[in-house]
């Protein structure tokens, strides 16, 4: 393909270019940050939104999905944000700290700043940091060579977010919930950074409340996990919305570090949850789980690239997908093992359950291996509910619908239980039931 040939912009792309012209003077950042924004927009201008001809977006054509691009959301209304936060209960009633990012900006007033500070956790506004010396570090992709279109879109329009810094050796006593809120319609581009000092431990809950209207929600999480630190991050992407839900995780793990994460998708019309995991120190472990439910004509995409560039690291990926209606599920996973990353142990599993005739699943579990002393495996299955199991339950007097619910719940719970964050298990299973009641 000829990269230099000008492309014909879609309505959404024209809207984005126009949006940038209008918004650029108001967007935070030093001169250097502005240059990075311009470069990122240049990528969208030259290549357009990611589309099916881009291998990574083969099954999730964002360019075709986005018919238009709404303007960025304006400043948040605190009272509105408060009431939205109180009505959302994605994770159920558990004891937690709260951090609020509304309409793309960190709201210190609604966040537990002091309580967290007393535990050794500091919160900084990304919008403020962008103007300072560390601004470019926040924006420049921590993963070199990453030319992802969704991340570029995030960089160009980045409004703000929060930097959560956990001091070395601190084990935060309660889970920390990061709620993103939309008090007004409009697109949001948020970047949150989680920095765990050596030996620090944090349980992070990520959720969203409100309605962005037709504006896309584009959030990038940047996890920086130092040596011996551990992060468990649960991401909830629920709710009925036509706005594209674009989530990116870029995680960097030091030595003997641990990352555990679960991405839960149920409801939106178009979701892309992509994760880039990089091992930079030895003897670390990443366990990545995914639970996806999609119905109607929606599309849910879980994409994952794990880079083993150092020896002796383990990664486990376990993804479950349930599809109904004419929904399309996508799983793309790739384990890269560099030449000197000996003794890598990688295991990837993706399983899909199709509840209706017209649902479709695309699985693409890849292994890319340049080292010889490794153990890598992947498995992929797709099929419908086992008639024998259904018969067994019905023979015991359980009505068909209920039996199906039980089986689907059991299927998805395998991943939730293996994830093993007991705090959230109940909340997540309730979300599964909600979704099943709707379908």
């Amino acid at each position, binding site marked *: 393909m000829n990269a230099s040939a000008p492309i014909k912009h879609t309505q959404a792309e024209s809207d984005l270019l126009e949006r940038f012209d209008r918004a650029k003077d108001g967007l935070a950042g030093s001169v250097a940050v502005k240059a990075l924004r311009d470069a990122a927009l240049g990528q969208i201008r030259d290549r357009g939104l990611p589309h099916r001809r881009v*291998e990574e977006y083969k099954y999730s054509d964002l360019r075709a999905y986005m018919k238009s691009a709404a303007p960025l959301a304006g400043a948040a209304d605190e009272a509105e944000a408060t009431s939205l936060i109180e009505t959302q209960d994605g994770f159920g009633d558990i004891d937690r700290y709260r951090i609020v990012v509304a309409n793309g900006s960190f709201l210190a007033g609604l966040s537990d700043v002091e309580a967290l500070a007393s535990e050794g956790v500091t919160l900084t506004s990304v919008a403020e940091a962008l103007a300072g010396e560390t601004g470019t570090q926040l924006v420049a992709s921590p993963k070199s060579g990453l030319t992802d279109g969704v991340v570029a879109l995030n960089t160009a329009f980045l409004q703000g977010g929060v930097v959560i810094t956990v001091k070395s050796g601190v084990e935060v006593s309660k889970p920390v919930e990061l709620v993103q809120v939309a008090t007004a319609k409009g697109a949001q581009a948020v970047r949150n950074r989680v920095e765990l000092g050596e030996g620090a431990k944090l349980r992070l809950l990520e959720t969203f409340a409100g309605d962005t209207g037709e504006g896309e929600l584009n959030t990038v999480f940047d996890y920086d996990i130092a040596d011996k630190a551990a992060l468990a991050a649960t991401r909830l992407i629920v709710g009925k919305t036509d706005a594209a839900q674009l989530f990116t995780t870029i995680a960097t793990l030091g030595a003997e570090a641990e990352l555990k994460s679960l991405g839960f998708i149920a409801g939106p019309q178009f979701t892309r949850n992509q994760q880039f995991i990089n091992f930079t120190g030895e003897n670390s472990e990443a366990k990545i789980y995914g639970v996806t439910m999609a119905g109607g004509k929606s599309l849910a995409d879980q994409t994952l690239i794990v880079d083993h560039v150092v020896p002796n690291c383990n990664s486990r990926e376990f993804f479950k997908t349930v599809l109904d209606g004419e929904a399309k599920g996508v799983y793309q996973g790739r384990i890269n093992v560099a*030449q000197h990353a000996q003794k890598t142990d990688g295991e990837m599993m993706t399983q*899909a359950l*199709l*509840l*209706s*005739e*017209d*649902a*479709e*699943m*695309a*699985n*693409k*579990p*890849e*292994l*890319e*291996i*340049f*080292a*010889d*002393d*490794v*153990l*890598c*495996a*992947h*498995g*992929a*299955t*797709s*099929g*419908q509910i086992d008639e024998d199991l259904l018969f067994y339950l019905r023979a015991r007097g359980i009505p068909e619908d209920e039996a199906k619910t039980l089986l689907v719940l059991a299927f998805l719970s395998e991943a939730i239980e293996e994830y093993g964050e007991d705090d959230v298990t109940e909340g997540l299973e309730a979300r599964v039931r909600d979704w099943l009641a709707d379908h």
Partner: protein
Amino acid sequence: MPAVQETIDKVKAIDVDQYKYGFVTDIESDRGAKGLSEETVRFLSAKKNEPEWMTEWRLDALRRFQQMEEPTWARVSYPKIDLDDLYYWASPKSVEGPKSLDEVDPELLATYEKLGIPLQEQEILAGVEPKNRVAVDAVFDSVSVVTTFKEELKKAGVIFCSISEALREYPDLVKKYLGSVVPVTDNYYATLNSAVFSDGSFVYIPEGVRCPMELSTYFRINEQNTGQFERTLIIAEKGAYVSYLEGCTAPQRDENQLHAAVVELVALDDAEIKYSTVQNWFPGDKDGKGGIYNFVTKRGDCRGKNSKISWTQVETGSAITWKYPSCILRGENSRGEFYSIAVSNGYQQVDSGTKMIHLGKNSSSRIISKGISAGKSQNTYRGLVSAHRKASHARNFTQCDSLLIGQDCGAHTVPYIESKNASAQFEHEATTSKISDDQMFYCLQRGLSEEEAVALIVNGFVKDVIQQLPMEFAVEAQKLISISLEGSVG
């Protein structure tokens, strides 16, 4: 393992290129002008006395080819091929249609003997051991030189001849099926092949006939600077059965030679085609110089109910392999199978796999792929399994395992699994690992040398596939794998 001097010497002595087919046969040959153009195509078509529609068909393909760009998605890298620097027509001079083996250039026969294809011997053996007979079609450079057992096959109603002959004798059959599985513009190399294919085999098995013997084709590229573009077309009518073997070799040369073949299989109701390949093109020398670029499009169409197509391949040669034998499972209850061993050593690059496209109800498929990569080679499995909306109760099982020998090689797995039907049941599993130290230790302890141990373990690793090969090939394949891997440990 500590590398003692003895081991190092031994490995050096063995060398990577144990290519015993690396000889050049000095036969006067007839070559067309270099370069790809309408003239070349017309010249080629005229040389072969092809009907007018065929010439047009080729020219149409050429025009479309000129609009296409070379694909870059495969995990292989090579300098751009200058298609205008190739001869598209090279044939041994004496090939004015030999009536029997006696008329064939003795030097050519000697070549085949070196290759281990005992054409004459087979003829003698015919009466003695009827079960093991193999009919051979030998393609030397671009021309099918001799087809054995023609008469006897004719009695059974089986047509087995070169495709140029088929174009003259059975134009309607060729016209009906040629390009019906792999369309002219299917992909870059298939289109090129459509424009300039020189020869190949044609097999037609009539309704209800079980082909009385194995059919076999040997391809050899001999001439310098030639591209070999052969085209194979196999049609199994209702209830027919055929087992077809294909072998390939080429001389050792510094420059890279291009091989871009197209194979089309058509299986109608209740028919079965078994297609086995042992590909042993010259893989390049130990520095990665020379070797064949093998860009092949192979596809089978299970058109009828209960039809079955099975691909078995042993890939040890070629500098670059780009090959995805596929099955289109159109018929109800049709079945596709793919068994593959891909061994890469030295600087070889393999990007191979299969596509199972389920269109019909109850269609099933099975993929067993074993990749072994050693030396500085890269070995990629790339496959697609898809079930379309109407393919209810489609079933697939895929297993692709990779074995890594040495630190400088790579093994990659890129499967695409697309299910558009809820009742389709797909299972896929893949593993990548090296030969375990435990297994090695066990073998060494019992007195095997390191190389013998590796050969033994590898043979165990590929057993599932070897079992699928016809007897004649199984032994050869096993030896080939051992030879290919020589020098890879130590």
